[in-house]
């Protein structure tokens, strides 16, 4: 009697075990088939700065998960071509030069990533869930956030969409982006340190704005949650 029970327990366990093993090997096989964009993102050095799945960028680099596809394709190409530079970073070089250095081969000065690969990387990144909101490093002044919100509505909404979450195609999502990244980009577009065909249109809007206004915009946008209501 006892022997029979033990036997059937053993059989059931065996069946369950092999079923779960079969399941996990299917999972493993699926896992192995990485999106080609993700694979390129990981092997062409993008991940080093922009972080796992584009959501954990280091230092003040931007998070790219869920960014506009066309915008990213344009920016990557601008950076490779030296058309997007930016103000000087701590090394005394234009901000985007570090990225250019990683994407251009030093032996023949040709891009290490093809146009097609750039498209694949951008397409994959655009599909990723945006980074979760990070609480500010230092508490933000509510008055500044409020001023930023107002300013955004009157000056920025037309291209970047409601609360920075619905940009026109080819324009970047700015909601939930890192505060200091936004602040520096606003300054760079005003000073023309960042000067690309796209930023030319924005220059007219920011040229008379103050650092204080930029700070308000950056404070406000950095705290808009693109994942709100989607969880």
């Amino acid at each position, binding site marked *: 009697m006892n022997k029979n029970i033990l036997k059937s327990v053993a059989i059931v366990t065996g069946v369950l075990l092999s079923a779960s093993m079969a399941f996990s090997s299917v999972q493993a096989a699926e896992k192995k088939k990485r999106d080609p964009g993700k694979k390129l993102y990981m092997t062409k050095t993008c991940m080093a700065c922009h972080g796992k799945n584009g959501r954990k960028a*280091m*230092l003040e680099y931007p998070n790219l998960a869920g960014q506009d596809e066309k915008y990213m394709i344009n920016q990557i190409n601008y950076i490779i071509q030296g058309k997007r530079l930016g103000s000087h*970073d701590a090394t005394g070089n234009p901000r985007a030069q*570090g990225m250019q*250095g990683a994407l251009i081969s030093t*032996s023949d000065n040709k891009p*290490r990533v093809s146009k097609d690969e750039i498209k694949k990387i951008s397409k994959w990144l655009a599909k990723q869930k945006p980074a979760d909101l990070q609480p500010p490093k230092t508490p933000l002044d509510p008055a500044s956030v409020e001023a930023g919100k107002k300013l955004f509505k009157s000056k920025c909404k037309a291209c970047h969409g409601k609360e920075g979450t619905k940009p026109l195609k080819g324009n970047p999502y700015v909601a939930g982006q890192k505060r200091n990244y936004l602040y520096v980009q606003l300054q760079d577009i005003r000073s023309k340190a960042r000067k690309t065909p796209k930023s030319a249109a924005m220059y007219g809007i920011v040229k008379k704005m103050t650092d204080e206004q930029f700070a308000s915009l950056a404070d406000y946008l950095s705290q808009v949650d693109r994942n709100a209501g989607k969880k």
Partner: protein
Amino acid sequence: MITKTKITALAATLIAGMMVTSPALSQQGWNEGGGEQDEALHLTPDRENGIEVYEVCAACHLYEGWGQPDGTFPQLAGQHKNVIIKQLADIRALNRDNPTMYPFALPESIGGAQSIADVSAYIATLPMNPEPGVGPGTDLALGEQLYKDNCVRCHGDNGQGIPEKYYPRIQGQHYNYLLRQFEWIRDGKRRNANPDMVKQIQGFSDKDMIAVMDFVSRQKPPADVLGTPGWENPDFE
């Protein structure tokens, strides 16, 4: 006869003495040491943390530390610990210009002196790429002669370097990387270059440079530091 030998020996000692003292003076700015570099040199490395820190580096230098044959990212595997410590400390202190690597060398990215010690010691243990990128192979005899006449004293008869003096292992490094660094050192673009080397190679034409770097890239590291083709680093499985 004996006297002659003695005089020669004395002269050699004197010359050697001068060679030791004058570079020490001219090397100021090349290798002042101090700070994090000295700190890292004297810390006991932790392998596990070295592996963890290295993950950041692997994005460009690859998990194996083998770099890219196009020379964009050098091979790090098998480099002397002291050399890695010095270069990392230099990049971080802005003594060596490298805008692409700079953010990764920051304490916020990899940690303090202990992390420099850990990752440098770990990198030194990685087996080297047995198939580095090499040059055109058209002027190897010239390259060998130039190497013998100019490079042996510091980089060794086979490009193995001198760890205690921070002279790097250059044997088996990717040709394109060697070429770029040589050119930058010759032309004053690499700020943390040893001034003695800058002087030594001033007369090198581009043809000389290509020949000697081609020769160096083809020098085989000793068997105990060499990996097998296609090796994958098991520390990152």
